[in-house]
């Protein structure tokens, strides 16, 4: 499926969710759907997206947190799936945009293109709900699922076309994006 179409659907149905994006194309996809104060874009810290989501989920238990990242980024944080499962946040959903390649660095095949299923790993770790989605109709159904409260963390793999779309670049000023995001939550700068 087309990654931008899938992300646009998820964000149109975000319903107040705070969004954290993994570096590279997921950050561009979320930015392409519209730059917002309640988006937190990572430009680095590979392997950190889902864990930033965990810290945010624990600090803001009344908000739903949606992490949108890529297969390469999540593969670097394999152990994070264990840490998140043990922490068991009820308000954290992880969306892995899986093109089975390292798209930013020349489209080398990743582990998910060589037989590793991240949703199965998450299920084995004890995530409350996991699935692998292959078309946009399934994403529509996922939007409905995400509206429902959960008893623990959820992870969904979206199999997307391996292609480098025109970049839609979020701000690279890390303090600006931080301060803007915190202000959205009513938090003041230093």
């Amino acid at each position, binding site marked *: 499926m087309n990654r931008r179409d899938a992300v646009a659907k998820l964000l149109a149905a975000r319903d107040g969710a*705070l969004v954290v994006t993994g570096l590279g194309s997921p950050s561009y996809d979320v930015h392409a759907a519209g730059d917002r104060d309640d988006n937190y874009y990572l430009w680095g810290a590979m392997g950190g997206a889902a864990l930033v989501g965990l810290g945010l989920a624990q600090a803001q238990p009344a908000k739903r947190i949606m992490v949108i990242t890529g297969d390469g980024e999540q593969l670097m944080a394999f152990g994070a799936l264990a840490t998140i499962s043990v922490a068991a946040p009820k308000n954290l959903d992880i969306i892995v945009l899986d093109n089975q390649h390292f798209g930013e660095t020349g489209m080398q095949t990743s582990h998910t293109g060589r037989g590793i299923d991240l949703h199965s790993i998450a299920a084995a770790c004890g995530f409350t709900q996991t699935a692998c989605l292959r078309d946009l109709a399934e994403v529509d159904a996922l939007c409905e699922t995400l509206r429902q409260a959960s008893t623990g963390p959820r992870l969904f793999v979206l199999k997307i076309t391996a292609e480098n779309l025109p970049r839609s670049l979020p701000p690279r000023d890390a303090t600006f994006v931080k301060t803007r995001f915190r202000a959205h*939550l009513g938090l003041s700068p230093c």
Partner: protein
Amino acid sequence: MTQTLPARDLAVDWPVALYVTLKEASVGLMAYVPDAGHSTLINLFGADKDVATNVLTTEEEGIAIAAGAWLGGMRSVVLMQSSGVGNCINMLSLPVQTRMPLLMLVTMRGEWDEFNPWQVPMGRATQAALEAIGVTVLRAETGDDLVETVAQAVTMAFDADQQIAVLIGQRLLGKKKW
């Protein structure tokens, strides 16, 4: 009749004093890879229903969790042994570049009365590695000094947006018993 509590001996009671200091500073989240030197602090936080505690598979996870917590308005502390500092280096670009508060408490190995040579290289590299990525390093060798150091590190981290690692000297922790 009011009971007079015995004065706290910081040479041995420093973990309790650190817990009180961090609680008074409104730290609401603790993440850790265990170390024997942190065991009392880990137990105190673990028993505290008001503090979210996260056991980690690798130390860098705690750096990312601390950043997420701060985005959501929560103060946190990350506990690890010096060997774990090396695992954190690239993830430290997150608090350094975003200028988010970070407070790491690092128990040292490989520097004093150490029996395990495998602990020595990272023990030797800990301070240099942290400073190379842009983290401010403070050290303490006695319980009194440690409590005072952490108290002011809390201010520098959470009020002054600094990334601080407090290294707890192996001389203070004592030889590992096993």
